[in-house]
């Protein structure tokens, strides 16, 4: 079983909710990455999604866009992030998932990317601008080095498409819980939970819900329906403002035992 699937299911088997925070690599300089990862690891994160900055991040809201621009102003590149992650292997033991738009991967070279990611012991890769139809490109180089290619699924897609994506996804499937881009939100619509239940029923891999999770209540509510949550903008904001401790209540909610319905 993949490292990611194992990490998530072991949490779920304990009655907990898996929790994957997103951080933007190089926001605050790449030298800050070690401290950021260790903070999240010590706080009990199941894995970390590590964002690579891109000049044109169409799937991201303002918070992550700004973080990306800050990171780019430090000159962060995909290659350097992978090399840094490789150096941190001794200390960072939770799985790392790389989230990057496709173009930086293409310019690095598909084979080169797979090789560097393998050396860095990257567990999975998410490409937000590469839907299932275009995903062979990367799957062909990641499969030989056993790195999961995680697909995003939009809950408003037809049921047949949702099932097909869940079946193709490796490690876990990343459910988009609102019709849109990343960012924090007050409430999650009820219809979202119905869609998530349907997805959970058909998915052979764990279901992680993302896009818009920003309160302990969100974590608890989603934890009752799916395997875990991904928290992006809220975490990025917390690190950028030096208030990492505000992430802890969300992690506490994830660690509390929930009854799945």
């Amino acid at each position, binding site marked *: 079983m993949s490292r990611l699937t194992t990490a998530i299911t072991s949490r779920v088997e304990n009655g907990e909710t898996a929790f994957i925070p997103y951080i933007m690599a190089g926001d605050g300089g790449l030298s800050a990455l070690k401290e950021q990862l260790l903070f999240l690891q010590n706080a009990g994160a199941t894995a970390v999604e590590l964002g690579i900055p891109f000049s044109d991040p169409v799937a991201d809201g303002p918070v992550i866009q700004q973080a990306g621009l800050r990171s780019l102003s430090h000159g962060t590149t995909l290659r350097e992030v992978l090399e840094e992650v490789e150096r941190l292997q001794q200390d960072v033991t939770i799985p790392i998932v790389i989230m990057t738009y496709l173009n930086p991967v293409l310019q690095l070279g598909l084979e080169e990317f797979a090789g560097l990611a393998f050396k860095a012991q990257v567990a999975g890769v998410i490409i937000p601008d590469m*839907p299932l139809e275009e995903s062979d490109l990367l799957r062909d180089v990641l499969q030989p080095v056993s790195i999961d290619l995680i697909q995003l699924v939009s809950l408003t897609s037809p049921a047949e498409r949702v099932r097909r994506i869940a079946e193709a996804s490796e490690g876990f499937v990343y459910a988009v819980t609102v*019709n849109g881009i990343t960012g924090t939100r007050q409430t999650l619509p009820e219809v979202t939970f119905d869609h998530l239940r349907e997805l959970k029923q058909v998915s052979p891999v764990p279901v992680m819900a993302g896009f818009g999770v920003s309160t302990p209540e969100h974590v608890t509510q989603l934890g009752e329906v799916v395997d875990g949550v991904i928290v992006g903008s809220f975490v990025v904001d917390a690190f950028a403002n030096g208030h990492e401790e505000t992430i802890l209540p969300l992690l506490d909610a994830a660690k509390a035992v929930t009854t799945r319905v």
Partner: protein
Amino acid sequence: MITYSAPDTRGRYGPYGGQFVPETLMHALTELDAAYKESQQDPSFQEEVRYYLENYVGRENPLYFAERLTKHYGKAKIYLKREDLNHTGAHKINNTVGQALLAKRMGKKKVVAETGAGQHGVATATVSALFGLECTIFMGKEDIRRQQLNVFRMELLGAKVVEVTQGSGTLKDAVNEALRYWVTHVEDTHYIMGSVLGPHPFPQIVRDYQSVIGQETRRQSLTQFDQLPTHVIACIGGGSNAMGMFYPFIQDETVKLIGVEAAGHGVASGKHAASLTGGKVGVLHGAMMHLLQDEAGQIQEAHSISAGLDYPGIGPEHSYLHDLGRVEYTSVTDEEALTALQLLAQTEGIIPALESAHALAHLETLLSETTPEDHVVICLSGRGDKDVHTIREALSQKEDV
């Protein structure tokens, strides 16, 4: 004869094109693709598009023999396809009429679009007023500053213009923001893409609606000089007027097709918008195509005196036609375009758009290899009224130097 059938069912032009978009848009694109194909099979829809092109846009427009310009060079006969005479002053409206009618057919009540210089924004605002659609236009902060009058025109037409401050505040950022908006409003909103860019089926839809340019030119050539042109030239930013002009000629091997990109201060200077001449293959805004980018794959800013050519990519079908060798791609600088603009103004009494002046500027190079028996057609994609301020500034700077 060459046979040409791109795109394939996956929206690929050879290795280019495709659908590199967030999953949240995939369903909308599938729907759009199906609705578009259906509309092509519906004669009454085709008739409706034709009706508005004729009675509202003012088609067909002339293929005009530029006699004094021809005499000036003393080589091939030069003809101008007068897209500048369309309602709103450029070829952009051919596409927005088609897409607005398609949006209505799909039951969408709202449209969203990006604009750089404002031409596509104005053309979208215009048809939105015509067909009663709620219109939102995303425009970069920098472009709003440079194109105040077009912002006012759009607002006068009832559109909402949203300032984009993200990124560099120019066209590519406006596309990003329009795509983000579309993701969250996809149920009731159609995205009117302005060029042969973006995810499939947009490059195909825009090409098809713009193909009226090439179809008319082909017919008019046969009527006016009993043969097809020997050369057809068009300027390229994203490449919609060029694609519309070239497409009906692709299978006519004898017709040389030439696309002219904007070289800005010169391709070697790094300050240009020549994605094919000076870029590398990558993925942006949903498609694989040639892009201006750095070694790490970050998209770079384009530079051109012509705001309409100021885009860091080129439509995927152009990338493909380039590889096939069917279209020759070249570039001209800001200065060459300005000179060509003045020449046309003073020989023919036509002030072309700065975009179109790039196509005209290529005559300097091309004509030396032609004879008086050749027929060269230039796509005069738009009129220069919108550029008068920029032209005056540029010319006065030139005099100062």
